[in-house]
């Protein structure tokens, strides 16, 4: 018998693909990289499924893996190959011209989020989209809680400025 939540990971991984992809997109601001990142996260999660502790939150575990893969592998590879240039203006905007009029504000907000510095984007995604407590976000990102607060405050200020433009 397996001692841990190995099968939990296999069985429930599919429930988290969309939120993993969204996190990956917010980190990388590239749709192709985001898909690679989700795939790498799935590979790593399946390799390490025995380490997942039953009764803890699978989504939090997967997010930590994705963030670690991003930091250690994908980003360094992009830096090495000089492929890190991103058109932040468009990276987070919806595909194509399908956005209904009601989505225009959302598209503007996403575009503005896409222009935020890395640390602010991460904090915004974790706290405002995924419901992380400040302390949880701080742990995942490896920064003090006060840094999460100031990043979120700066992001809010920047987005409030959309109306001034």
């Amino acid at each position, binding site marked *: 018998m397996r001692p841990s939540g*190995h099968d939990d990971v*296999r069985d429930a*991984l*599919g429930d988290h*693909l*969309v939120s993993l*992809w*969204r996190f990956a*997109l*917010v980190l990388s601001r590239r*749709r*192709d990289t985001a*898909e*690679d990142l*989700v*795939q*790498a996260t*799935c*590979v790593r999660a*399946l*390799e*390490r499924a025995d380490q997942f502790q039953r009764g803890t939150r699978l989504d939090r575990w997967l997010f930590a893996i994705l963030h670690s893969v991003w930091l250690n*592998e994908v980003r360094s*590879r992009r830096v*090495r*190959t000089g*492929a890190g240039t991103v058109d932040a203006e468009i990276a987070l905007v*919806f*595909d194509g011209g399908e956005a209904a009029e009601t*989505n225009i*504000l*959302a*598209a503007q*907000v*996403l575009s503005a*989020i896409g222009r935020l510095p890395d640390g602010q984007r991460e904090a*915004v*995604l974790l*706290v*405002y*989209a995924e419901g992380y*407590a*400040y*302390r949880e976000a701080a742990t995942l990102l490896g920064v*003090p*809680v*006060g840094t999460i*607060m*100031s990043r*979120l*405050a*700066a*992001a*809010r*200020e*920047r*987005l*409030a*400025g*959309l109306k001034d433009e």
Partner: protein
Amino acid sequence: MTVGSMAESDIPDDALLTAWLDGELDASERLALEARLRREPLLAARLERLQEGGEPIAPALAMLGGSAPEARLRAMLAGRLAAQPRARVDAAKSRRRWFGLPGPVQPWRPVAALASLVLVALVAGGIGYGLALRHAEMPAERETWLQAVAEYWRFTTAETLALAPSADLAASQLQLASTALGLPLTPDAIVAGDAPFRGAQLYGFEGKPLVQIAYLDPDYGPIAFCIIRNGAAKNSAPETAEIEGFSVVHWQEDGYGRMLIGRAPVARLEALAGRLKAEAGQGA
């Protein structure tokens, strides 16, 4: 408190206001800030501005999630689950495959609208492997499509078929298969009783289009219904066979060869054949 060990006076007002908006202040911090808000109109104005800035974030990110390439992600996961069975996997080897790649070479890149590329690649790899083996062993014997299917069907497990395609993906797969075969394949026509549909893949065998429709039988595991446009002139009624340890029922009709293959008893496949013969892609 949540905000940590910083003395309150050390925290910039914007951060404090943000923490208040996010419900991250403990009771004493909250009361202190609320007292200041009553006394300091400028601070209250800052609060309002930060609140406005934060309001559209969650809805916008929710919409972003809605634009995820979910079908492709699911197909990718199905491929990974198939490639990493429930038994232990060789972690180092698996990682090297994806990240030891030099430079900008990407491990996996979506290029087509049809989503199950990884699955296709895996199974197609299986076909190639099977064919290579067979040709090496029996160079003189002509490969039959029944044998070729049986060779690669060995690679399919219940886990390969663990994920059901979304309705959109299923419709796209059937559309592609119908077009390639020149046969109408509708979701209704390919229903196989209580064995749920698990996707349709298009292959080629000796230049002829070959479609494999997969089902996951609750009792007997994976079953495939395969159709090849082989142009054979002679019709034949369903016959049973055992190939590579699988039960097989196959028949030929109007230029199309059809087969059912699985580890189910032959009688189960014959019953399915009766149904599919009546419904699936007839009368083209």
